[in-house]
């Protein structure tokens, strides 16, 4: 009888274990939903931790301080999540600041739709070269009709070309660059959805104009970190010479004013613009005979920080939560993924 009773107890506990475990995680999704909203609706402590480059938040929150708009994020707090920024926060610092010890997370912030640029042809016409690009604006394959504003930057030369993408999400841009300039050229393209000017996307395309060497990856010559309306350029080589620093949005472009210069650092003032558009800042210059065009976006997007859930153990519960957030009048998608600590 004792054996029977014991085996019944063992059997019961074996059978019930997964169900009891499931019950204990039953409210996880609701809890993670609340945590995601908390991060996006609260400004954290101190409320302006994003602007203070040496300050780490005591409590995590990405919302803009004193904002009357829900889900309006602070441009600097967002930029400090990007590992490309000199003042970025590590995942462990963010996890500590969130203060929820039994939860792991990932934050992804990106534009609402994708913009791709392809160079399809180039030809010489008199004393200039004609480049033809095809631009596609899509959201997971679904075409988006947009208005396009593009800039081509080489050395001191800048030109603006506008166009649009049709109902198939495809459009073309033709730029003319004089052959009197040469080196790394940068094509910047901004897109605004025709249905709503707050829905924006952007991308860049680097190519070599009138010179043979291939273009080098962005960040080879300078690390650009925008924060608190100042662009900090940290130069990789002491021989690097900056020719021009410029700012671009969908509607505007102009030169940046220098704030300070160090041995291998330069700072520029970044003006506050009311354009519902991401900002792209470009530095052109030379390192010896090699020309460069380094760029950075403000807010510094796209970004992905946190735990890589794609490698999590099969069967472990992961919750993905999507929100729409506003940064500087433009709309972005914020996807947070959550999991428990086993």
């Amino acid at each position, binding site marked *: 009888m004792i054996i*029977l009773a014991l085996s*019944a107890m063992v059997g019961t506990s074996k059978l019930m274990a997964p169900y009891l475990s499931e019950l204990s995680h039953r409210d996880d999704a609701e809890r993670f*939903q609340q945590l995601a909203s908390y991060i996006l609706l609260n400004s954290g402590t101190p409320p302006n931790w994003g602007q203070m480059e040496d300050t780490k938040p005591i409590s995590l929150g990405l919302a803009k301080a004193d904002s009357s708009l829900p889900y309006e994020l602070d441009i600097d707090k967002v930029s400090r999540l990007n590992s490309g920024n000199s003042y970025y926060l590590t995942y462990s610092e963010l996890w500590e600041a969130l203060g929820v010890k039994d939860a792991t997370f990932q934050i992804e912030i990106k534009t609402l739709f994708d913009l791709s640029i392809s160079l399809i042809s180039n030809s010489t016409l008199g004393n200039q070269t004609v480049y033809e690009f095809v631009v596609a604006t899509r959201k997971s394959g679904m075409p988006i*009709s947009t208005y396009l504003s593009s800039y081509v930057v080489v050395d001191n030369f800048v030109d603006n070309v506008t166009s649009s993408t049709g109902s198939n999400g495809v459009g073309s841009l033709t730029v003319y660059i004089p052959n009197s300039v040469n080196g790394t050229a940068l094509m910047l393209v901004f897109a605004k959805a025709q249905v709503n000017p707050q829905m924006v996307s952007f991308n860049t395309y680097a190519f070599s104009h009138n010179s043979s060497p291939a273009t080098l990856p962005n960040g080879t010559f300078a690390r650009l970190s925008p924060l608190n309306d100042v662009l900090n350029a940290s130069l990789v080589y002491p021989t690097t010479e900056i020719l021009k620093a410029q700012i671009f949005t969908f509607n505007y472009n102009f030169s940046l004013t220098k704030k300070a210069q160090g041995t291998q650092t330069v700072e520029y003032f970044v003006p506050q613009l009311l354009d519902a558009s991401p900002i792209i800042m470009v530095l052109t210059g030379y390192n010896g005979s090699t020309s460069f065009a380094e760029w950075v976006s403000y807010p510094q997007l796209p970004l992905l920080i946190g735990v890589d859930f794609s490698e999590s153990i099969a069967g472990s519960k992961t919750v993905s939560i999507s*929100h729409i957030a506003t940064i500087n009048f433009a709309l972005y998608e914020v996807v947070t993924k959550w999991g428990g600590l086993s």
Partner: protein
Amino acid sequence: MFDQKGQIRIIEAFLAVAVIFSVLLISVTFPSSPNLDNQKSLANMGTQALITLDTNGTLGNLILQENWTDIKTSLDILLPIGVSFNLTIYDDNLRLVSSQAIQNSNLLGHEAVSVQYVCAVQNLNVQFFVLRLQLAWTR
């Protein structure tokens, strides 16, 4: 006498085990309460999409212009891929305003959640519209 007592105890133990296992079987096979987490998250996404679209009066102006195509495209961009929706717009007397279906695919056969949102438009006088957004995960 002693043997008979022992037999009854064994039968009693078997019965006890049978009772425990039958309770377990019933609890395992019984349908658990539906998981409402996905529905809640879908409803939150729908509400947030409508609030975002209503910022700066965009949604109200699109309704006044009867521009159903732009409302549908805006929701297509704001909602994640894999979410089907069907939006119906009524005036403040609950008369149907949207003359055509504002939807990206059919919700039939999917577990849908409904979100209700009131949109105010201010021009010469204030007008109210009631929006009913039905959403479902299709994948």
